[in-house]
């Protein structure tokens, strides 16, 4: 996929994210995050931030082929190079996650009883890095196995949100081991790099292949 085309896909995915009225759902999540941040036993104030971020952007991870209704079908008609398109869509997910993390952090941390320490902030960054690519790879798999091509808000969103929390829990285990038990930022970074390599070399081609396979094609007229 050429640079201008890659830019086109990333830019339109982001534009849709910000134009989508569905993002209004972020408001009650942020309110819940603020309440959670006020709880004295929460530990790091970044815990509610990440809960809000990953619940609020669940669909951006787990439904990349159909970010808007019929997107998969429409893009199948166009001369899309699917590996490039999956990379572009995943890059858009990373940017969305970072933007929501920044926005969510500013609001939620403002209401937290204590401002986060420098160590807590660095740990939060390390944690985000360790879970981001595993969640993207898992989301790519869910996008092809359980595509949600229909409306902007779907009944399937609820069980998917639960699945998303489970996936977040599983994706957090390596961080808990490499940092929580072994106290090794180097191992955590090494793991994060390995996850990024897995995403690029395994998840992207697999998703691109599935995007055009007969089992994933939109089931219209069938």
């Amino acid at each position, binding site marked *: 996929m050429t640079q*201008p*085309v890659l830019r*086109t896909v990333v830019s339109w995915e982001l534009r849709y994210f910000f134009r989508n009225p569905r993002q209004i759902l972020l408001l009650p999540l942020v309110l819940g995050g603020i309440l959670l941040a006020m709880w004295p036993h929460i530990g790091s104030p970044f815990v509610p931030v990440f809960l809000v971020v990953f619940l609020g952007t669940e669909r951006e991870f787990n439904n990349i082929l159909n970010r808007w209704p019929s997107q998969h079908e*429409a893009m199948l*008609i*166009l*001369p899309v190079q699917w590996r490039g398109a999956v990379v572009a869509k995943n890059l858009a997910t990373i940017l969305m996650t970072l933007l929501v993390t920044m926005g969510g952090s500013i609001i939620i941390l403002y209401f937290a009883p204590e401002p986060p320490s420098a160590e807590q902030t660095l740990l939060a960054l390390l944690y985000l890095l360790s879970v981001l690519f595993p969640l993207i790879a898992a989301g790519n798999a869910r996008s092809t196995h359980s595509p949600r091509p229909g409306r902007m808000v779907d009944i399937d969103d609820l069980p998917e949100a639960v699945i998303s929390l489970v996936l977040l829990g599983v994706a957090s285990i390596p961080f808990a081991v490499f940092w929580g038990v072994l106290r090794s930022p180097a191992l955590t970074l090494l793991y994060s790099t390995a996850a990024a390599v897995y995403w690029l070399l395994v998840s992207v081609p697999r998703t691109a292949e599935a995007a055009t396979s007969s089992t994933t094609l939109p089931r*219209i*007229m069938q």
Partner: protein
Amino acid sequence: MKAIELGSLIKTYETGRRALDGLTMAVPAGSLFGFIGLNGAGKTTTIRILAGLLSADSGSVRLFERDVARRDRWHKGQLGFVLDRPVYFPWMTGREYLGFVGRLYGIEPRELDRRSEELFEFLDLESQADDTIDSYSTGMGKKISLAAAIVHRPRLIVLDEPLEGIDALSAAAIKETLSRITASGSTVLITSHVLDTIEKLCTEIALIHRGKVLLQSTTATIHEQAEALVGDRQFSSLEELFLDLVSDRQKTRHLSFLET
């Protein structure tokens, strides 16, 4: 040269309904080809297979003498589609949609702007170019789909019911454009329920019924071909010919409650 060659296409849906039952058809390059049949005859299934939205169970699909694999990007660059149910991005404005599609086809931004302006003017969409597509009427939706289908100057344009829901003025403009497109060497495959339009517009016609091509001929000779097929009956119009070939003569067509 053939623009499309379909060989023994078979497609059965999960419901068990066989949509294509060995469909074989060839569309000559540069022709304005009419593809007609009853609802459920297999037209849309054929078009969706051409578009890569469905895969056939068996059979071959060749475009411009090249086998088509669904993952092959080459053929998508040669094609433009207006589907029965247009697939576009309703949250974009018409201008944004053409910009998005044009960039994916690799058209340079300046050239894309020029073509877009021309298309909006030609299709009488200038005043709605900056409105979101979800505010468009059915006819306007068809028009923006048509604009997106031809913005990259494809060699083959496939239009499934492009004139449905379009006002007479735009329909006339579109028909004239299709004739011009074929005059410039491109191929157009069109389906329509308006058989009179097909007969006047197309150079060649294929009649599909129950997933098979019943008859394919140039428009000039289709009556002779049909007459040879059914015996010595004569047909005054394509509609009469069509009805004779596809109607089920054994089926009683009446509504008993209207006759009492």
